[in-house]
C-alpha cells in the first residue's frame, strides 16, 4: 500500500506539471480527490487494514491528500495569475484623451450669479423678493421720490405702454410694494430684503448697451438702522460676493430715493489699491449706489420715517456677471445663441 501511495504521489505531480488550464486542473482534482479518485480509493482501502497498520497508513494517506489539496490550490493561483497577466497583455488600450461628447445643460449666467448672491444674502437673514416687470408710473417714479418734471425721468429712457404703464427702469420700482407687503418692522427685527429683477431702458443696442438687463437691489429697514450699519453690511456682503476682504469707500452721490445718497467704491482687486489702469490710478472702483432710504419713500411705503430708518443699495447684476466671466459684449445675454450660452456649465 505504501508503495502505491508513492506511485500516486508521483503520478499526481507528473500530471499537475502538465496542466495548462483550470478545466484540466479540475479533472485532476476529480481523478485524485473525487468520489472515485485514487486518493479517495486509498482512504477506502484503509478499512481492510489492522488497527496498527491503519494508524500508520492513515496518516500517510491523509498527508498525501493534504499535499494534493494544497498543490491544487497553489496551482490554481498560478493559473489565475497567468490568466490575469494574459488579459492585461492583450487588453485593448482605451484612449483616455478622447473627449466626452455629452452636451450638458446649462443655466443662464445671470441665474448662476444671481443664485450665488441670493444665497449669500439668505445666510444673513435676507428675504428674497420679486417684482413685476410691467409697472405703474407711481411705483417706478413717484413712490421713489421722482416726481413729474424731474430730470431723472428724461434721463431714464423709459418704455411707456399704451395703458400708461411702463417697463420698469430700475428694481427700485418694487420698493413701495415690498414695504406695503411687510409693513412696519417689529422692534429689533429689521426688514431685510433682496429683490433682483429685470429692467428696461429704451435705447439702441451696442456692445455695452442693452435695453434689457438685470439689477439686484437690497433694503434693510428698522427702528435703528444707521449709516454705520450700512457701511458694515456693504463691507461684509461685498467681501462674500467677491470672495476677498473688500475695503469700501463712500462718496456723496445723488439719487432721489435716498438721503444721504452715496456712491460706493471698493478697493481695486487688480492692484490691491495701489493704482493701476483698471482703476484709473485711484485704487478704487465705483461699484454701486446706496444710501439711507429717503423719508418720503418710507412715508409713501406706509412706514413712519420718524420712527424707522433704512438703507438701500443697488447692484448692476448684468455688469457684475460681465466682470466675473469676462464678457465683453452685453448683447450675448439675450441672444439665445447656444454657442455662447453652452459655455456656462457652472
Amino acid at each position, binding site marked *: 500500500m505504501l508503495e502505491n501511495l508513492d506511485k500516486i504521489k508521483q503520478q499526481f505531480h507528473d500530471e499537475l506539471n502538465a496542466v495548462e488550464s483550470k478545466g484540466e486542473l479540475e479533472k485532476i482534482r476529480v481523478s485524485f480527490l473525487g468520489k472515485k479518485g485514487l486518493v479517495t480509493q486509498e482512504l477506502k482501502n484503509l478499512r481492510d487494514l489492522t488497527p496498527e497498520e491503519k494508524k500508520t497508513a492513515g496518516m500517510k494517506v491523509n498527508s498525501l491528500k493534504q499535499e494534493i489539496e494544497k498543490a491544487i490550490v497553489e496551482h490554481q493561483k498560478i493559473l489565475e495569475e497567468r490568466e490575469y497577466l494574459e488579459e492585461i497583455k492583450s487588453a485593448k488600450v482605451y484612449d483616455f484623451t478622447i473627449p466626452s461628447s455629452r*452636451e*450638458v*445643460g*446649462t*443655466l*443662464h449666467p*445671470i*441665474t448662476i450669479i444671481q443664485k450665488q448672491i441670493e444665497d449669500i444674502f*439668505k445666510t444673513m*437673514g435676507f*428675504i*428674497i*423678493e420679486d417684482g*413685476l*416687470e*410691467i409697472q*405703474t408710473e407711481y411705483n417706478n417714479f413717484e413712490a421713489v421720490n421722482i416726481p413729474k418734471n424731474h430730470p431723472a425721468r*428724461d434721463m431714464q429712457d*423709459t*418704455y*411707456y*405702454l*399704451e*395703458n400708461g404703464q411702463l*417697463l420698469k427702469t430700475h428694481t427700485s420700482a418694487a420698493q413701495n410694494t415690498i414695504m406695503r407687503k411687510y409693513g412696519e418692522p417689529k422692534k*429689533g*427685527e*429689521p426688514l431685510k430684503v433682496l429683490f433682483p429683477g429685470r429692467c428696461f431702458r*429704451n*435705447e*439702441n443696442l451696442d456692445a455695452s448697451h442693452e*435695453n*434689457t438687463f438685470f439689477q439686484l437691489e437690497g433694503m434693510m429697514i*428698522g427702528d435703528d438702522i*444707521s*449709516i*454705520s*450699519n450700512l*457701511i*458694515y*453690511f456693504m*463691507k*461684509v456682503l461685498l467681501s462674500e460676493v467677491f470672495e476677498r476682504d473688500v475695503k469700501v*469707500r*463712500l*462718496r*456723496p452721490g*445723488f439719487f432721489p430715493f435716498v*438721503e*444721504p*445718497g*452715496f456712491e460706493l467704491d471698493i478697493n481695486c482687486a487688480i492692484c490691491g489699491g495701489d493704482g493701476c489702469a483698471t482703476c484709473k490710478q485711484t485704487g478704487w472702483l465705483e461699484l454701486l449706489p446706496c444710501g*439711507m432710504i*429717503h*423719508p418720503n419713500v418710507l412715508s409713501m411705503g406706509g412706514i413712519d*420715517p420718524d420712527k424707522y430708518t433704512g438703507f438701500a443699495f443697488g447692484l448692476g447684476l448684468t455688469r457684475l456677471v460681465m466682470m466675473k466671466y469676462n464678457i465683453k459684449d452685453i448683447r450675448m445675454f439675450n*441672444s*439665445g*445663441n*447656444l454657442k455662447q450660452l453652452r459655455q456656462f456649465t457652472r
Partner: protein
Amino acid sequence: MLISMNWISEFTDLSGVDLKDLINRFTLSTAEVEDIYEMGKDIKDVVVGKIIEVNDHPNSKKLHLVKVDIASEVVEVVCGAPNVYVGAVVPFAKLGGRVGDLEIKEIPVAGVVSRGMCCSEKELGISDDNSGLMIIEEDYPLGTDIKEFMDLEDIVFEVDNKSLTNRPDLWGHYGIAREIAALNKRPLKPLELLDSSVYKDLGSIDLKLEDKERVYRFSCISMDNISKKKSPTNMRIRLTYCGMRPINLLADLTNYLMMEIGQPMHAYDNNKVKEIRVKTFSEPFEFLPLDGVKRKVDTDTLMICNAKEPIGIAGVMGGELSSISDDTSSVLLESANFDGTSVRKSATKLGLRTDASSRYEKVLDPEMTVTAIERFMKLLLDIDPGVKVTSSLTDSYVQHYDKIVVDFDKAYVDKYTGIDISADMMEETLSALGFDIDRNGDDFRVVVPSWRATKDVTMKADIVEEITRIYGYDNFDIYSTNSLLSPIRHSLKRDNEYRIKRFLSDKYDMNEVHSYIWYETKLLKEIGVHTEPNIRIINSVTAENDTIRSTIIPSLLGFVHKNVDSSPEMGMYEIGRVADGLNKDGLCNEKKRLGLVLASKILSEEEVFFRLKEAISQVIMEIKNISPEFVENDTINKHNYVHPVNSAGICVNGKEIGYFSVLNPRIRNNMDKKLHVAFAEIDIDDLETIDMVPLQYKEVSRYPGVTVDLSLLVEKSMRYEELAGYIDLYPCQYLNKYYLVDIFEDENLLPGKKSVTVRFEFVSMDRTLEGDEIQTMVDELLAVLNTKNIELR
C-alpha cells in the same frame, strides 16, 4: 467742470495745504474729481524780452531774424510770427528753457542759428490765439520771468458734472471754495462787490416780465464808455484753464462770472435794446441765436425781447442781432433767474444745451442775480475805470423760494448715523456751509442758505448728509445691527423656479435662455409665426418691436431658428414674463411662464414629442409630487405654430396650467424640413397655486410579487388612458400596479386594431400568492375588459 486752485485760493487760504490730499477729501465729501492737471509745469525760463531789431531772413520770406533784449544779453533768434516789430515786448523762451513739449535749444532755422523763441499765447497755454506773438502790454523789467506776473502755474481739477446735478451752488468757484473752506476748517472770504445802490438815482431800464411763471427774477444794468477790449492776462489764463475760450473783455467777464459764482449772464448791445420784455409767443417763429444756426422756436419757449423783437432765448443763448462785438462800448447786462424745468425743456427741444442752460436746469439761487451784477461791475471798473454806468440796477423779483427752517436735535443725527458726532462739530460744519444756526444745547434750529434752498436741502435727513459728509464717511465706526434673531420665511415659489431650472438643465441637458419681453417682429416674420395683438410700447426706439408678448413660445421658436444651422439638437427653456391682456383695472395682467422647446434632426418627431412630455411630467413631479394629466384643448389651435393634432393641454389637479405641442409643419418647413420640434408653455403662477403633495412612504410587501404580461387587443384609436380607465374598473386588492410594456400595430395582421401589452403586478402584504389565485384574478380582470370589447390577443 474744471476748477482752478488759484481761483479758489482767492476765496479761502490754501497756504500749507496738501492740495492732492484736499482734492481727495473733496471727492469723498462733496463730488467726484475725475482728473487733476498740473498746469504751467511745462513752461520754464520764459522771460520778458524786447525786440530791438528785425531783419529779413536770407532764405525765407516768412521768417525774420530778430534781436531780443532780455536785460542780461541780447539774443538773436529766427522768428516766423507775422507781428514782429521793433519795440514789441514779448515772452521769450531762453536756451535750456521749455515751452510745452518743446525744449529750447540752439538750432538752425532755414540755415540761420536761432538761440531762443518768441512765444504766442497758444504756445504758453494762455489762450488758443496762435495768430502771432503775445504782446506784453504791462510794464515789466526786461528779463523778468513771466511766471512772476502770470499765474501759469496752477492745479486744475475736473469735477464729474453728473455728481453736481443736485448741487446748483457748486457750479462756480465760489461755491466750491465754500466746500473747501469747510473741509479745511478755514474761513471763506466774502466776494468783493461794488455797491450798486450808488446808482439808484439813475433812471431804471424799461423792463416788464409778461410771463411770471417761467421767470423768477430778472436783474439788469446798463453802462457806457467801455474802452478796454482785451481781458487781463491772468483772467484769460483762468478762463482757458477752466475750458472757456477768451473772446473780448465783456464776453470774458460774463463767462468769468458764470465760472466764479455760477450765475449765467448776458451782455446785449445797449443800442439795440430799448424795452425789455420777457414773454412767450403765441405762434412759432424762427430765431437766430449766437451760434449762427437758425432754429424754430415754439410757443412754450420763453424769450427775452426788445419790445416785440426777440433778442434771446431765456436761459439758453442770446441772439445774433443784439450781440456785442469787439467794438461795442455800450452794453445792457442781464443777470436773471429762470425756471429750471422750462429752460431744460427749451434747450432740449432746440437741441441747444449751453453752459447757461445746464446751470439753470440745476435750479439756481435767484438771490445771486444782483450779487453777480455787483461783482461784474467791481471787476469791470477795476480793469476799465472809465466805464460809466447809465442806469440804476433794475430788478424785477417775481417769485421767491420759501425760507426753509429745519428743527432737529443731536439724538436724531446720532440715530441716523449710528455714531456720536458732537453738537459743537455739527454747529461748526453747518455754519461753515452757510446755515444760520439757532442752537440750544443739543437742539438746533437752522435756516437753509438761499443757495441750497431751491430744491436741495429741505428736511432733517438732508441736514444729516451735510454733517456726515464733512465729518467724512471714512471716519465712521462701523458695526452690525442690534437685531433679534427671527426665522425668515423664504418663498418656496422662488426656490421652485430655481429647482425647475436646475432640473431641466441637469436631467434633460437643456440650456436656459433669456429673451425679450416683446415680440421680435422681423425674426417671427421670417419663420411665419403669427402673434396675437397685445398691449404695445408707444415710444420704442426699435419701433417694429413694440408688442409685448402674451406668450413666451414665439421667442423660443425664434431662438430655434437662430440656432438651427449650428445645432442639430437643442433644448431650451426660459422662465419669463408675459402680459396676458389687461385686468379690470386696465393694468397688464403680468404672468410668469415657463417655456420649453426641444428640437432635433436626429430623433424622430415622435421621440421629441415624448421626450418633451416626459420632461414636463417630471418637472411637475419634481416640485409638486403630482403627475400631470394631458387633455384635449381646442383653444390652443388659435396659434398658427401649434400642431392641429399632436398637441394637448397640461392639467394638474384638474386645473389647466399650460399646453404642449409638436411644431406646426408649416412653421417647421420655414426653418428646416428635417427638424423635429416640440414645445410647451406652463404658467408658473398658476402652477404655484397648487399645493405640493407631501411625500408619503408606502410599506412594501415582504412576499414576492407575481407579474403577468397581457396583450390586449383594442381599437386602434383607443388612447392608453381610456384602456387604463377600464382596467381601473376591476377592483382588486392584490393588483399592486400595472404599466405599459409595448404597443404593436400591423394593418395586415390586426386590421383596425392594435395590441397593447400591459404588465400587471400582483402582490399580497401577508403571504405569497398561489398560482391558481393569480389565474382567477387574471380571469376576473379579462371578464371586466370583455364588457368593453377588449379581448386577449
